[in-house]
């Protein structure tokens, strides 16, 4: 399972989860910061739940705290999902 996870799959799941929380689709790009998207720690906790359900990757509070951009999150999730 884990080995088959692709960057595109991670991006789709994370973008879908974020879009449901608030940001519009056209705001969602790797360089976008969570601050400018108005995505806070509670939002990221919710995204973490979705990621856990989809990929079996657990993101703890400390992991999420250091994420600044959407790209940071995508990279971390992909790395955890494929390692």
């Amino acid at each position, binding site marked *: 399972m884990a080995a088959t996870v692709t960057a595109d799959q991670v991006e789709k799941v994370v973008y879908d989860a974020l879009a449901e929380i608030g940001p519009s689709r056209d705001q969602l790009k790797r360089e976008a910061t969570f601050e400018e998207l108005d995505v806070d720690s*509670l939002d990221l*906790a*919710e995204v973490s*739940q979705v990621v856990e359900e989809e990929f079996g990757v657990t993101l703890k509070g400390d992991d999420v705290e250091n994420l600044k951009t959407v790209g940071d999150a995508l990279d971390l999730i992909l790395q955890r999902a494929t390692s």
Partner: protein
Amino acid sequence: MSDAPGNGHPEGCALVTGASRGIGEAIATALAAEGWPVGVNFRSDEQGADRVVAAIEAAGGTAVAAPGDVTDPATADALFTQLEERFGPVLVLVNNAGTRADGLTVQMEDDAWQLVVDTNLSAAFRLTRRAVRTMTRQRFGRIINIASIVGPKANAGQANYAAAKAGLIGFTKTVAVEVARRGVTVNAVAPGLVDTELTEGIPSKFLEAIPARRAGTPEDVAACVRFLASDPAGYVTGTTLTVDGGLSA
């Protein structure tokens, strides 16, 4: 049922801890009357829980007995999973399970402290943590913590109980703030002297101090919970509703 016309909330159910008798029983009965399928949690009183379930069903409601000792860290997930499989997400959580182990601080054993803090405070934390995961994503939730006027107010011989209940009120406020914008409310209800098994043996002189001149009933407390769990109470969060016949006024 919970998806009946006029209800603005998603379909789901309610969980009441310590609901085999007393205040918990009255709360489970009231929420069932509101149309919520109810998980009637109990630790050891299976007969009591079965009786509560049967009474709810006889009145046209839906309920299931939900065994589990809330002081066991594994219980929260087991309870929620049981109810989710049967009724869908738990959208109302009432942290009611409580216990007493009274004594003056100078004589209180560690066990008495730990038991009361575990049951009355730590269990509420673990159940709430599990509950908000689902509630925030459903954009609806009602968490009601049964506190006490003891805590905000002193009561000699109950340092453990007072600490746990005051802690529960502090916990209520902070969680309320964390989840408010997801349509999830978190409130406490603080009963005064209520006529239940838990309060048996309390001297009658306390009744004289109550402006209403009577002990509260489990139904008095349940009425407050019923309101806080309702759709129209959606803007009430982080507060403590005191139901004590004026005792702490």
